[in-house]
């Protein structure tokens, strides 16, 4: 598996990438709030924040196909709930508003995560006095996410290369074995990480 499947472009270089992480986080938050509080009457004027976003996307030099694919991956969820909204009086209008709103917010967050390395975001959170234990947890999680995801895929591949057909009933059992092995490996790794952290003077 590619180790950077989540935030593939976060470490490339562009005008947007070079902006300070705190500024980008604040701008993303501001944009999300503005879009959410945008009155429904002025829906066409939503083109203004949309234009800003597209400008930022262009400046960041992330391939549009990547942004589009990420959007399409997340959009079904939005459409699902938006469809439920149709059952309300004035549903179609509400649905249109919801879809536009959600798409803009999604694009904002995709841009943020692909122009800012996660470690930089965590540094901002730390400066904002987010408790250290949560920061440590987030850092370790980000560090080992890809390792464990890779390990899970390896276990899956190993199992598939040894089985011709998985019977439906056994599928659950196999999945449970993979999950529990994954937890065993995660906790063994946690022990090693703890020793390594202590060896480096962690308190």
């Amino acid at each position: 598996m590619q180790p950077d499947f989540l935030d593939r472009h976060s470490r490339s270089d562009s005008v947007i990438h070079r902006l300070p992480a705190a500024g980008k986080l604040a701008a993303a938050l501001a944009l999300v709030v503005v879009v959410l509080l945008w009155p429904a009457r002025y829906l066409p004027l939503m083109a203004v924040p949309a234009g800003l976003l597209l400008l930022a996307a262009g400046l960041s030099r992330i391939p549009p196909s990547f942004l589009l694919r990420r959007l399409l991956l997340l959009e079904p969820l939005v459409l699902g709930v938006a469809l439920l909204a149709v059952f309300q009086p004035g549903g179609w209008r509400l649905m249109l508003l919801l879809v536009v709103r959600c798409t803009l917010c999604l694009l904002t967050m995709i841009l943020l995560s692909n122009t800012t390395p996660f470690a930089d975001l965590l540094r901002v959170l730390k400066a904002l006095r987010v408790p250290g234990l949560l920061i440590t947890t987030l850092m370790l999680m980000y560090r080992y996410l890809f390792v464990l995801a890779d390990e899970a895929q390896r276990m899956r591949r190993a199992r598939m290369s040894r089985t011709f057909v998985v019977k439906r009933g056994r599928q659950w059992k196999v999945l449970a074995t993979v999950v529990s092995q994954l937890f065993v490996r995660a906790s063994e790794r946690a022990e090693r990480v703890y020793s390594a952290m202590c060896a480096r003077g962690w308190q």
Partner: protein
Amino acid sequence: MHIPDGFLDAKTAVATGALAAAGLGIALRQARRHLPARRVPLLGLSAAFVFAAQMLNFPVAGGTSGHLIGAVLTAVLLGPSAAVIVISAVLIVQCLMFADGGLSALGANIFNMALVGGVGGWAVYYLVSRAFKGLFGRVLAAAFASWCSTVMASVACAGELAASGVVRWSVVLPTMAGVHMLIGLGEGLITALVLTGLSRTRPELILEPAQVAGARPYGLVAVYGVLVALGLALFVSPFASQSPDGLDKTAEELGFDAKARVTVPAPMPEYTIQRFSGARVGTSIAGAVGTIAVFGLCWGLARALVPKGQPKDVAAPAPRQ
């Protein structure tokens, strides 16, 4: 169940954000006091584990696929406070890195999945595993708690969506709860299988319920319980009251009825309202029967996984010859 940006209105986002921050704060405080230093990296690794486990899809009926949510599994393995931190970390990373779950809905998602799903599920697990002893009791409790946790979280989610005026309670509750009653079955099955496997191979990795909660389990449960109850009172109870439609009533009371002025008249609005009170009784009965049936299913599953002759003490299994 990740709510994206745009579905929650300002009041719901702020209220859930405050509840989530309070719950996470309590969990962090609790962990700082009681969590041994050597278990600190385990929080981060467990969060990575939950994330990786969520990527393993399994086929559900009809060509769709689902994945483990892992709230109860984490709570059973690490204890409720650690689970709140772990699941919140997963949600924060999913939000910031993957845009899965919105920034403005982060509070709501943490409230639903970490507090209602994690702590609520753990409370069910704790109560049931006290009533039924041994590994059988724990497997039964974990399976049932996983189902309850999934359904409870989906009901909280439905309440928030309805309170935001996005979808009607009478539409969103049956949809969300119905789907998650099915998803919960898979969640319960996997959690039970994982727990049985782990307690056979590596029982030392699972914390005893008593070990987790310390000397005052009820104090801890009460603190989280107040938070969860507060959230449910805000978002779910207005709809469960005697009024025909909770949202309309709340809107009337709060005076933003005019905002929701109908642009397209609903087809037969009275029809929905009149049918609703009858449907509510029906839904309640169906819910109760369903819950009992699921408990029965979990009983059967636990019996199948842990036959009667098994040694009762899990933490110290009989030495193998």
